[in-house]
């Protein structure tokens, strides 16, 4: 469930997109607000389809929303 190496810009992108609320984003991507909260705070790593949906909602490439920090490299 944890996503130690995954960071995201969802909060910033929400505010850049007309101060979109977590509930609005949740409704657009078809998940609960709790899932958005958990994803935004880095406690949950979303599936690829959900990550793409979030990126599409903001109209940006997925790498602008999520960044993977590989500690080994």
């Amino acid at each position, binding site marked *: *469930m944890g996503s130690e190496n995954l960071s995201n810009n969802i909060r910033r992108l929400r505010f850049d997109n007309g101060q979109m609320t977590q509930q609005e984003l949740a409704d657009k991507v078809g998940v*609960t607000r*709790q*899932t958005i909260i*958990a994803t935004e705070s880095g*406690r*949950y790593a*979303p599936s690829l389809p*959900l990550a793409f949906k979030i990126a599409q909602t903001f109209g940006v490439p997925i790498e602008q929303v999520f960044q993977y920090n590989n500690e080994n490299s």
Partner: protein
Amino acid sequence: MNKLHKSAWFNLGFVTIGCFVGILCFVLAASRIEEGFNHINVILCLIALCIIIPIVLIIARKKSYEAGFDEREKMIDRQATTLSVYGLVIFLYLTCFIPFVALGGGNTIKIIYLPVVFVCTVFISQLIKSVTIIVQCKLEQDNG
């Protein structure tokens, strides 16, 4: 409170009531069994069988809720189910081996304990599952 949280509370309440009624019926049937097999025993056993109906309802309800679960909720549900299976196995292990160790292999137990063990096993597994989901949801609520 999201759907998963609500379904966990529903599950817990329903299983508790179902198991309580089931055990009560079996105990009543057991208390009368020495009087011989009569229609009251049959009725009591039939009522006890009603525990199957709650289980079916729970599964049906769960399935209907699953349609509304998102991927994170399904993951929590799967984790809780896994934990409940571990709990079930541990409970069955203890139920089978404690009497064996305490009473010895040559002793006997009453048949009435078998349905009680079954009902308790269902209850324990559902209790673990529901509590796991409730705790998980509560922790997430507390974290924001």
